[in-house]
């Protein structure tokens, strides 16, 4: 559906073969230092992750900078080691197509999101990280920072069910406090045709560094918000809903479970940004 295709400037393959464990190992100390000092990051709950391919399902925050995604990659690769089961994140083309950032992302284990990519990666034995809410959730208004906004998207449920893998929900707070977002930009994106041209579904008014006021979200310098992440116990859709699930019921259950955890995590904040 996308009409605008950018020429490829990337040297790193877009797939599990692009993940570079040695590069990750070398980069982890610098990333760890940055996230500990700047975001005072906390990640808990990895003990819930079973030793089999799983689909991590997260709430997406922070516009195009997605600091909690980087944090999760950092935490995962230190908990399970870079030689352990690889985790591959599906990312919006805005990230994977950005020069330099795209190559960095691929070496860290991100690939461009596509209809069959996640299934291929799971079949290859990798854990896969998806954000069903995509840019709509990453650009939700600041007032909804502690809300799950999956926009009714249920593809992740069908993916996990068909692949026979468990869903491991991951919730995070703080990422949406790294910039200010004033409104829900879905209607604007649709009116301007951005949803069809660039697959950008949300174009809200934002305030971020160094751009100031801007429609939409470009990669920005995030405010130093405290980021907390919680990995939740796995959900087995086949066990809970059988071979022919009621997708609406499954969607309600997964999003409700995540909302409860996200609200509880949000309640640990004393002050937004400061944590």
């Amino acid at each position: 559906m996308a009409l605008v295709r950018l020429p490829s400037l990337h040297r790193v393959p877009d797939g599990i073969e692009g993940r570079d464990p040695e590069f990750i190992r070398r980069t982890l100390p610098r990333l760890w230092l940055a996230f500990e000092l700047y975001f005072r990051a906390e990640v808990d709950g990895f003990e819930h992750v079973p030793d089999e391919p799983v689909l991590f399902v997260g709430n997406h925050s922070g516009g195009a900078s997605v600091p909690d995604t980087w944090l999760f990659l950092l935490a995962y690769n230190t908990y399970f080691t870079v030689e352990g089961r690889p985790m591959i994140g599906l990312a919006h083309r805005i990230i994977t197509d950005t020069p330099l950032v795209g190559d960095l992302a691929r070496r860290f284990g991100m690939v461009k999101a596509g209809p069959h990519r996640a299934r291929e990666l799971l079949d290859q034995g990798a854990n896969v990280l998806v954000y069903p809410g995509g840019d709509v959730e990453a650009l939700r208004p600041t007032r909804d920072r502690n809300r799950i906004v999956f926009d009714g998207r249920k593809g992740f449920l069908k993916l996990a069910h068909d692949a026979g893998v468990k869903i491991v929900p991951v919730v995070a707070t703080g990422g949406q406090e790294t910039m200010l977002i004033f409104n829900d930009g879905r209607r604007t994106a649709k009116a301007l045709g951005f949803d069809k041209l660039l697959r950008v579904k949300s174009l809200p008014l934002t305030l971020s560094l160094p751009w100031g006021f801007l429609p939409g979200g470009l990669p920005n310098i995030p405010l130093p918000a405290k980021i907390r992440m919680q990995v939740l116990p796995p959900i087995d859709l086949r066990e809970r809903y059988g071979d022919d699930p009621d997708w609406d019921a499954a969607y309600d259950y997964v999003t409700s479970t995540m909302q409860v955890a996200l609200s509880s995590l949000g309640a640990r904040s004393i002050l937004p940004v400061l944590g």
Partner: protein
Amino acid sequence: MATTATESIVVRRPVDVVAKVTTDPGVLLPLVAGLGRFAFIGRHEDGTEEWDMFLDIGAIHVGGRVLVVTAERSLTWRSVRGTRHSMVVEVTDHPDGAVVTMAMTVQLGGLVLGRAAELLARGIAGRHLVAGLEQLRHHLEFGPAGP
């Protein structure tokens, strides 16, 4: 001086079921105090109950002993020891089931700094109320009290 935080949530279950669970302190208080600690102290002859309830907020523990009064569609409490506060929980009709509303009023001492602390407390209390309401909703829609 006092400040009040109010939050509501829609629960997609019959209003009578929601009211029965919401007005049971043994169910509600553990859900609301999920981020802290709670303990049942005793029951008075008039049907009221005393509970210890604390929210853990950073390095401090906000709460104390509360006296809980229940009615058909509401539950209220007021502090008798510790942080001076009160709580009103009400269940009302909604086309999709029921609405649960929680309002917590906190009284803190001081003038300028007291005002600043109350502003902070309202935000903290609001986020705890949202977390408690989400726990209650999930418990009713998907937990033991679910369909």
